[in-house]
């Protein structure tokens, strides 16, 4: 689980370390920390931390450690990671064909594409897609693989 939390800690020496240490105690991984001394509420300062923990059980464990250390959790939420992948189609298609194809998938995906001049009546389209999960990536892969098989194109996908 990839999460972001806003914590308010007492403005005393050692409090920042004291708020981060519990993440290691539940075998989590700290990705980024912002210690915002400008934001003070009830003599507490803001620590914004992005981290990973294995599952919700570990997260519950972490929350109770924070509470036991008198660390106030003001906000906690998931951070979505996006996966970017490239797909290339080579074949005898025109710009309308590729735009229609992309329209079909872009309902669920952020897509950008560029298309190159034709070589021996073949055109190349490079499609960059941003998706949220591996599953979405697999679906997109399947979609382009099917389209290229149906319309006799060469399909080249990213790693």
């Amino acid at each position, binding site marked *: 689980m990839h999460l972001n939390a806003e914590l308010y800690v007492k403005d005393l020496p050692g409090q920042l370390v004291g708020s981060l240490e519990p993440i290691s105690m539940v075998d989590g991984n700290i990705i980024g920390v912002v210690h915002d001394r400008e934001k003070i509420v009830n003599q507490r300062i803001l620590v914004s931390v992005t981290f990973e923990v294995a599952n919700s059980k570990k997260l519950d464990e972490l929350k109770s450690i924070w509470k036991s250390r008198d660390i106030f959790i003001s906000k906690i939420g998931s951070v979505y990671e996006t996966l970017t992948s490239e797909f*290339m189609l*080579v074949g005898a298609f025109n710009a309308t064909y590729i735009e229609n194809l992309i329209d079909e998938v872009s309902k669920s995906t952020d897509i950008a594409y560029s298309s190159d001049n034709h*070589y021996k009546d073949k055109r*190349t389209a*490079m499609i960059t897609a941003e998706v949220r999960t591996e599953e979405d990536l697999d679906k997109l892969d399947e979609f382009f693989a099917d389209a290229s098989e149906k319309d006799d194109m*060469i399909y080249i996908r990213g*790693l």
Partner: protein
Amino acid sequence: MRIFLSGFGTVGQGFAEVIKRRRDFFEDKYGEQPVVVGVIDSKTFAVDQKGLDLDRLVARKQEKKGVSDETYSDALAVMDSVKYDLLIEVSPTDVETGGTGLKTIRHALECGKDVITVNKGPLALHFHDLIALAKKNGCKFRFEGSVGGAMPIINLCHENLKGEKISSIRGIFNGTCNYILSKMDNGQPFEQALKEAQQLGYAETDPTNDVEGYDAATKVVILANSVFHRDVSFKDVKITGITGITPDAIAQAKSHNMVIRLVGEITETRLEVAPRLIPIGHPLSISGTLNIAQIDADLAGPITITGRGAGKIETASAILSDLIAIMSMRL
């Protein structure tokens, strides 16, 4: 160790050279030299129970295109005419029937002989049958050189990574295609790059097996069966070759800081050979005739190995490693 050598082309002659170069090693480690007691090529044969003079055989083969004046019609009868412990099968690959290689390997295993092969045909078509036959007759059966030439991928997975769960192997298993695609990176069209590969001896006169991805697919089958313990054959691999890759496609990839490479991929569910977009700087973006493989293991993480995928001495080095393994097991 008495060896029967089936096939005396480039690899067979390379093996003759390699065992000559490692004479001292065999003497020091085993107190004996491996002795080749029989050789067949496509038409001729030579046998001598005391051991053949390999230098003379190589010279004769190069001069007269045969290992002797004696021809044969039944390779198995020639094998039966001498006593040997190990068959080294290096005859040309036939992925449609398995060719002579399949017959000689089967025969040797049925007779209780150990076998080393680099011949992809029998392995791609009848892997599990051959493994079962070897097991039934208590024979050692090794085939390191069949995938990636000198790149030690099979024995690495079987021996060093024995305790790992391998989730995927992705690699470049055909040096010819990689050479052509590398040349296309620099602006050469496919036809010209292929011609250059043929002139340099990297591609056959009929390049179909390489450029259509069939050669890489046989290696994918061997890895799937031997490393992933799957039961698949050549027809199970989804294959796309490189003949349709245009200069536009290469240029588009380049503008996104990528190259196109023919990648073989094996997972629990996927068996594929296809052109893929590879970021420049990624290990699989290598240029030239090298082979490379990335193994994803659960404990060790990703492991990358690279090496020369073909060549007389390089492939013979893989045979040598199998020979040493078998000789060590017999100690």
